[in-house]
């Protein structure tokens, strides 16, 4: 034992740490290299591939618990996108990806390249991208930073999506203080393919060629920030350029057409897009999937600029590039297709049988790593999950709630509350944003953004695809299990109310630093909730994305489980919309309100700390509600169907009214029995509830069907007029008003014009945009 401290001196951190590789991980890398040390290039390749983003090293054990099998699933997690058969020889491919951190740094390019990346995941599989949905989450809409980010992200999504000609048909825009330092940009794409053209990202057949086509490789988007930071400390070095990638939607459009043509003409054995990890990732993943290796000829890779280091070439995340594995005799044909679309193309390597990713420059071998070590055999960490002391653990599904006191209701004017809610930044019309996205190109859009689920017809069939996106971060912050379950319930419910059957779920889990036990507990609980809900509802998880380290100096974001669901509607003529249709139709509430206002928009509006718990969910009830509404639609009983979610029943009714008749509006007269309290019954967000309307002659059948599904059902009123009138009935109503000493009548009566104005102008007002 020495008693002498080492003399203080300038110690440079060893390279692996500067690249974000821990000492333990370095040991694990040595194991996979037969005991030897990696050289600097190999270390750079490992640092990217073993990053959380590429390896899922923290989340992999959790994700394995999710239900992935389901009817028609052709490709599930692990592929570029989930693929589900929809009959007629067709299949749908869909996937979601986050681009949170790039968007925080450079909102336009961050969002644009997010769209580009997710589109590549779709057409890589042989599917033509037919739709994009984007979920955006920001901080306070009044803050200068938020307004800058919103403007940049919206321009980026539009600038890219509009140019490539893929309609943006839906999404979410949510403001919550928790995202002030760390916005969320989660982009989903949907593609349609002929099943026979399904193409996998594998590199089979030793002797085949690895071909890179699309844009050239440059220094933009060099790997993890750690690599950047470690490369140099001088200000004028070009490698200090921001690590945000730059998008070129025109190149992407050409890449889509060229890739689909190569697939259609059966010229490729495997196809993989280049995203995070660049050439290193694309070669190692395709080789590992096929049990082969790839020998990369560094000099053959077309560069955007001279003087690039080997590691820069291998981990560059330059956009709009694809790796194809082809038979040698097809090279001339492949080159001709790329030439026709004006895309650079080069043979950059050969498929081998040694299982290694080998990098050579001339005669020199620069790197040799087993492909599996970079991908399927990458390190997995067992993280520690600890619930925070001030939060209860998640309840068992269906556990009874203890009713607790709600918000102060003294003096509450329900009409004023409704106007404030429907004009609030989170519930007002998203039109000022989505009008900047082309939502109609390709001539498939039956229902675009604005009124619930997006609906896309499938040309040449009677079918349609229905897509929704939901995430409940407010409840997730209070109970991450429940937040995830509610998100799945709402996203699938929004598919079911159109009459469609949910086919599959893709998800983007946005959480904090997994090395913090509390953040990892949130992720663990969310994945448990996601699995519980998907099993109960019988919907497979076909893929997803995990985004961790969503933290800023202001703290971690509220846990945000972004859930996307794609459903199939067999007869688009039977599509049910959310808006009222005909004067005289009867309005029916299915399901019942349960106590709890925590996590609601009403609570957020009231701006008071809410002591009670969010309303829980009975998954069996949720399953019954969705089965009921699909069956009602199938039997043609419904005129409209809307779910009760943000803003509660009052907002749901208001939306049904103002969206009616092509946005001209149709009023309603409602008599609402108060079972809990006026606030809970009008504005509570307990799940598994629907507002449906139907012709009077269909009401008996509808009520009977609801009862057969074991659902509470209540006739609320009638469609008609130019006002929304809600009378509160029952003991909870009049008595409560007297008790409160409120002079406000227990009724809400708002002209549609007022509701419409509040809804139309709310977002522009919140963001300080001029109304247009």
């Amino acid at each position: 034992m020495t008693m002498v401290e080492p003399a203080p001196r300038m110690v440079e951190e060893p390279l692996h740490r500067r690249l974000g590789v821990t000492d333990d991980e370095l040991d694990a890398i040595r194991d996979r290299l037969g005991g030897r040390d990696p050289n600097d290039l190999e270390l750079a390749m490992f640092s990217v591939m073993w990053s959380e983003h590429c390896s899922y090293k923290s989340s992999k054990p959790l994700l394995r618990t999710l239900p992935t099998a389901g009817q028609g699933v052709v490709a599930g997690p692990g592929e570029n996108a989930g693929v589900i058969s929809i009959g007629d020889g067709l299949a749908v491919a869909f996937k979601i990806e986050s681009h949170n951190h790039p968007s925080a740094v450079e909102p336009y390019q961050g969002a644009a390249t997010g769209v580009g990346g997710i589109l590549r995941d779709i057409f890589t599989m042989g599917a033509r991208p037919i739709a994009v949905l984007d979920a955006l989450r920001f901080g306070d809409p009044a803050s200068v930073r938020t307004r800058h980010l919103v403007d940049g992200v919206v321009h980026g999504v539009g600038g890219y999506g509009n140019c490539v000609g893929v309609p943006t048909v839906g999404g979410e825009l949510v403001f919550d203080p928790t995202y002030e330092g760390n916005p969320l940009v989660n982009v989903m794409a949907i593609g349609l393919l002929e099943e026979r053209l399904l193409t996998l990202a594998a590199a089979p057949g030793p002797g085949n060629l690895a071909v890179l086509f699309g844009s050239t490789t440059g220094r933009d988007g060099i790997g993890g920030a750690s690599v950047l930071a470690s490369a140099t400390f001088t200000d004028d070095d070009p490698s200090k350029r921001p690590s945000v990638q730059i998008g070129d939607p025109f190149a992407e459009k050409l890449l889509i057409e060229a890739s689909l043509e190569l697939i259609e003409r059966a010229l490729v054995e495997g196809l993989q897009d280049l995203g995070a990890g660049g050439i290193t990732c694309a070669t190692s993943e395709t080789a590992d999937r096929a049990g082969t290796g790839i020998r990369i000829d560094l000099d053959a890779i077309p560069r955007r600029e001279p003087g690039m280091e080997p590691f820069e070439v291998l981990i560059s995340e330059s956009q709009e590039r694809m790796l194809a594995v082809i038979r040698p005799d097809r090279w001339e044909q492949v080159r001709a297709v790329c030439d026709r679309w004006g895309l650079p193309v080069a043979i950059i390597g050969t498929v081998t049988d040694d299982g290694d990713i080998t990098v050579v420059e001339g005669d020199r071998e620069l790197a040799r790593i087993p492909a599996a070590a970079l991908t399927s055999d990458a390190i997995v960490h067992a993280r520690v999950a600890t619930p925070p002391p001030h939060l209860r653990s998640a309840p068992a599904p269906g556990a009874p709630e203890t009713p607790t006191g709600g918000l102060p209701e003294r003096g509450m004017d329900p009409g004023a509350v409704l106007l404030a809610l429907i004009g609030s930044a989170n519930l007002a019309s998203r039109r000022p944003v989505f009008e900047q996205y082309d939502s109609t190109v390709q001539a498939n859009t039956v229902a675009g953004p604005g009124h619930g689920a997006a609906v896309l017809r499938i040309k040449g069939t009677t079918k349609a695809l229905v897509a929704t996106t939901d995430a409940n971060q407010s409840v997730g912050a209070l109970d991450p299990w429940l937040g995830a379950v509610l998100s799945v319930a709402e996203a699938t419910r929004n598919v079911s109310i159109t009459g469609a059957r949910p086919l599959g779920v893709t998800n983007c889990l946005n959480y904090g630093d997994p090395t913090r036990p509390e953040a990892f507990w949130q992720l663990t609980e969310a994945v448990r909730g996601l699995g519980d809900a998907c099993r109960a509802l019988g919907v497979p998880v076909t893929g997803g994305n995990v985004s961790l380290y969503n933290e800023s100096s202001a703290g971690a974001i509220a846990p945000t489980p972004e859930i996307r669901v794609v459903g199939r509607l067999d007869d688009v003529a039977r599509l049910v919309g959310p808006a009222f249709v005909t004067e005289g139709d009867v309005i029916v509430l299915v399901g019942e309100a349960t106590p709890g206002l925590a996590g609601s928009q009403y609570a957020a509006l009231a701006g008071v700390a809410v002591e009670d718990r969010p309303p829980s969910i009975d998954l069996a009830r949720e399953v019954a509600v969705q089965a009921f509404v699909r069956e009602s639609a199938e039997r043609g009983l419904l005129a409209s169907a809307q779910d009760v979610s943000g803003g509660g029943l009052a907002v749901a009714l208001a939306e049904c009214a103002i969206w009616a008749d092509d946005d001209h509006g149709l009023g309603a007269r409602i008599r609402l029995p108060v079972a809990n309290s006026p606030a809970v019954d009008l504005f509570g967000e307990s799940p598994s509830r629907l507002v449906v309307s139907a012709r009077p002659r269909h009401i008996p059948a509808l009520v009977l069907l609801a009862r057969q599904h074991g659902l509470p059902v209540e006739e609320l009123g009638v469609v008609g007029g130019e006002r929304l009138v809600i009378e509160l009935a029952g003991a909870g109503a009049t008595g409560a008003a007297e008790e409160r000493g409120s002079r406000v009548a227990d009724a809400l009566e708002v002209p549609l014009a007022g509701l419409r104005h509040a809804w139309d102008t709310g977002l522009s007002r919140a963001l300080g945009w001029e109304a247009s």
Partner: protein
Amino acid sequence: MTARIGIVVFPGSNRDIDAVNAIEVVGAEPVALWHESATLDGVDAIILPGGFAYGDYLRAGVIARFSPVMRAISAFAADGGLVLGICNGFQVLTEAHLLPGALLRNRGLRFVSRQIRLVPERLDTPFTRAIGKRRPLRMPVAHGEGCFYADAATLDELERDGQVLFRYAHEDGAAADETGDPANPNGSLRAIAGVMNAAGNVAGLMPHPETAVEAILGSDDGLGIIRSFVDSAAARATEGEPLAVGGR
């Protein structure tokens, strides 16, 4: 006979999909025309579709006008052939000086995608004659550079000579205002949404009739325009019927 309608495909065209669909919906035959093609494959009429030809990074349509196919189209148009430019196609036609005016950035400086209404000014042209009666037509717009501009003298001339084909309008058919009116989505001067050349055989408009040809997609009001175009093309092909409509 079935009219064969050429649909130009520039790198970056994207509403060619919509145009093909519309032509099929009305029972005609779509024929893709590659931008590098110097010939037109004997088609009866030509649609320049929407999109971002060559990326349009510099200015919409500015590069496309130099493509080989545009040389062929100029000759085709000079010979009286029917040409319809939609959105990006309209932009290309103005850049190529086959149509008057220019399309500037939207006044709001943002891309605009919404359902609008437009009213045909004339019902006696190859592009409008199947519309039936003058009424507001509902269809989408989706563009960033759609503000129709020309100097006042040119605008007067276009109006005098009957070259204004469509104007943006309100639901009741009243023409939209130039500024501050959401019914005019891009601030086009005199709310002009579409024009034709003096000879009456080349037309362009910013809205998308080709995306509004099926009720399931929200509107089939675009059918009248597409039918007019296809019927006129077929008539010209079979009967050699003169297409050009004179001034008024």
